[in-house]
């Protein structure tokens, strides 16, 4: 898929190749450096950061900063650590991903196999909604969530993420199903199979890859979201907002090592997904840049 196909047929000389490897290596270091700094400094006592070199490995290795970040550090006014916020994020992400993926699959199925007058306009509107700056919906969303009593709650955040996630999940499934032979669907119709039966028996069994791509994309986006969490989270903030509160807190000594440990905790879920299923992550990214 994204990276398939052949390498170039261009031939390069020895010195050119050395130069190319050099540049590629320098950039690899550039991308890895922050990861190294964050991990190394999350395992140091604070004195080694303030009095030592950030680029050095720990002299004394300690997991105390991780413990602090997880269950002791002061977030806002409460010394709870990041644990409850991690839980908030999980409780928000799982239903939001599930609902938006199911809706996206059904929408994509309707838009490709049961097309009707005006379906292209509907898809165009959905597509555009993927790219709006969310500032344009913040004020009405705050008002509406307040009115229906979901402000500052997990269900409120789930609603927001589902509503603004449908566009992308529909886009993915539509592009995937568009290349699925319509003849098969038509044959099933002739045999008397209904809408859901065809979806269940014919479409779903071939949807594995696109389901993985969509789930990963939605998971990454919703886990990493900050704007909606900060605007509508209230007391039930997700992980990103809590991390920012921890880092920006102006009281007391700046515990850099705890901040670094917190940053890893916030990054861990999406990083694990990337390591385990990077191929699908890249596919989602490429499909998200519309070229499907």
């Amino acid at each position, binding site marked *: 898929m994204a990276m398939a196909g052949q390498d170039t047929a261009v031939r390069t000389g020895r010195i050119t190749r050395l130069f190319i490897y050099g540049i590629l290596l320098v950039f690899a270091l550039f991308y890895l450096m922050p990861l190294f700094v964050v991990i190394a400094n999350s395992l140091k006592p604070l004195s080694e950061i303030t009095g030592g070199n950030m680029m050095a490995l720990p002299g004394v290795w300690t997991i105390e900063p991780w413990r602090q970040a997880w269950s002791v550090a002061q977030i806002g006014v409460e010394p709870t650590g990041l644990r409850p916020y991690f839980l908030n994020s999980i409780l928000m992400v799982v239903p939001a991903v599930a609902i938006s993926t199911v809706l996206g699959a059904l929408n994509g199925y309707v838009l490709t*196999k049961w097309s009707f007058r005006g379906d292209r306009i509907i898809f165009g509107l959905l597509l555009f909604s993927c790219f709006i700056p969310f500032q344009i919906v913040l004020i009405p969303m705050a008002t509406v969530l307040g009115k229906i009593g979901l402000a500052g709650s997990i269900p409120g955040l789930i609603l927001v993420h589902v509503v603004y996630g449908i566009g992308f999940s529909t886009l993915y499934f539509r592009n995937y199903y568009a290349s699925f032979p319509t003849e098969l669907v038509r044959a099933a119709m002739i045999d008397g199979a209904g809408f859901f039966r065809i979806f269940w028996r014919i479409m779903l069994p071939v949807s594995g890859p696109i389901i993985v791509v969509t789930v990963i994309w939605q998971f990454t986006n919703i886990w990493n979201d900050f704007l909606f969490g900060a605007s509508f989270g209230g007391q039930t903030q997700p992980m990103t907002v809590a991390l920012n509160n921890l880092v920006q807190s102006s009281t007391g000594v700046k515990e850099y090592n705890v901040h670094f440990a917190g940053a890893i905790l916030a990054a861990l879920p999406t990083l694990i997904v990337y390591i385990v299923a990077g191929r699908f992550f890249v596919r989602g990214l490429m499909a998200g840049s519309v070229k499907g």
Partner: protein
Amino acid sequence: MANHSSGVDFRTGLQEWIPKLVLSPSLAAMLVFVYGFIAFTIFLSFTDSKMLPSYDLVGLENYARLWNLSSWWVAVVNLFIFASLYILICTVIGLMLAIFLDQKIRGEGILRPIYLYPMALSFIVTGTAWKWILDPGIGIENSMHLWGWTSFQFNWIKDRDMAIYTVVIAAVWQTSGFVMAMFLAGLRGIDNEILKAAQIDGASNFSLYRRIVIPLLRPAFLSAFVILAHLAVKSYDLIIALTGGGPGRATELPATFMYSYTFTRNSMGIGAASAVIMLMTIAAIMTPYLYAELKEKT
């Protein structure tokens, strides 16, 4: 579009309505939460809303006041600086890495994921990491001093004139690998026969890329530009985590301006007007692109 007429004869009664019924919740949600909300925000931008929405129309006053605010101009100029450098540097790095990785490189399977992993992180995590790396007290500057280069200075993040460039550094770090992936996919789609023919004609590698390969990558350039431009306009989290809009207001962008005017300065009318301008900017970039994409797919 052969499937437009698919199975018309077989749909009867309820069957015909089921697809539309299935689509309707999403459609309703989109019409209310996206387009209805956009309409409402546009409406608010013409009212004298302060802390809460108000329904008294004041015409274009909010827009007039917005463009007279020096802090809005700071945000707009910052966006211009940030977006141009961000798009330019990401494109250059992305294209270079893609071309280099395409030369039958040993270890491509290791390098590629290293270039791309920042894309999996939240901008808040990226911002937090770079905030301390760029901090002169404990970060790179301090490291250089400890390594013996005592005259080394790198305090951009504390410098009003330079802080916006630190945002560029962190943002490029996060997304340039993604741009690399887009170009690499484009490169792998180019027919090698074309390249071989040009080589037989004696074209040098440099002119091969300049005259044949890069022009063939036009679609990838366009996608990269559109994606990066819309990310730039939407940039919010990174600013919050990296600089908090500071020092002073030196790194405010329209997205942070909108938030602070609406929710902390109680000028909802002006905040709504700034959101409308952000939307119009993105619409101007995205609409022609999406329109062309949709037409192409027919």
